């Protein structure tokens, strides 16, 4: 499966989808059409788990701030990861600056909402 990469813009994060099992999203997220923007990412993830997932999939998310539609999208993204976490080993790192309390709280909410997922809070 081919890797997929998106460069960061002023309002979208840098995204690296590496078929060897490392997924990363780093930056800000407030696209105008969030679901449209992330559609290729969600499709890639689904295909990845269907065809050739790595033994361990590591997801690194470092989102400084995001709009509410991105919040919904990340929820759907974690939902997809959770659906695949029984057959696959998935580790998620929610990375934030220690001064960024909103990001910390967002991470804690995702941990509570996805009890079956292995989400770690990681401060920079």
């Amino acid at each position, binding site marked *: 499966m081919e890797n997929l990469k998106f460069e960061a813009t002023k*309002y979208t994060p840098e995204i690296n989808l590496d078929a060897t099992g490392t997924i990363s999203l780093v930056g800000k997220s407030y696209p105008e059409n969030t679901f449209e923007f992330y559609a290729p990412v969600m499709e890639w993830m689904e295909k990845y788990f269907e065809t050739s997932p790595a033994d361990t999939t590591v997801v690194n998310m470092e989102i400084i701030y995001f*709009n*509410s539609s991105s919040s919904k999208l990340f929820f759907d993204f974690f939902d997809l990861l959770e659906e695949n976490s029984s057959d696959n080993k998935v580790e998620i790192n929610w990375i934030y*600056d220690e001064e960024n309390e*909103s990001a910390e709280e967002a991470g804690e909410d995702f941990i509570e909402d996805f009890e079956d997922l292995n989400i770690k809070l990681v401060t920079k």
Partner: protein
Amino acid sequence: MDISQVQTMVDQDGIIFLSYGGYLSQSLISSMTEALEKEAEDNGVNMSISNNIFTIFIELSQNMMNYSKSLEDETNKAQGLILVSKDIDFNYHIHSQNIVSLSDKEKIEPKLSEIQSLDKDGIKKRYRELRKSGQNTHGKGGGIGFYEIAKKCDSIEHDFKKIQEDRYYFHIKTTILTKKEK
């Protein structure tokens, strides 16, 4: 028009910037957000509070952009007003005003009334319930924007003013305190 009057108003009310106009585009929103980032950095606003300011600003302006576009036709041009100001205590105020239809008003009002009736923990709980259920999700978003704003500000007020049949000014005012009691 005398531009010095505008300057006086900007100085008196601590306005950082305001934008009124035609087309509120995504690139304009991101440029204004960058200006806000610079402003927050220069004033040493802590990261958590400044991220709340950016999120609220983005939420309000993207909301306005979407509502205005949906009403745009030959007689109604997309228009909106967004204003960011800072008072003498360094608290931030973000206002937005745009025109909505009666059916938009009827969709918005119950959400804002619900928000007014809840405390902070109630808002956070409702936000997560709605995000999880996806019941408000539509083409542009999760339908949780007002809850996102309410979660991240210290006060949120709103009013509707009828302009003509099926058209209302929709005004939102949010306040973000920069010096919080710990």
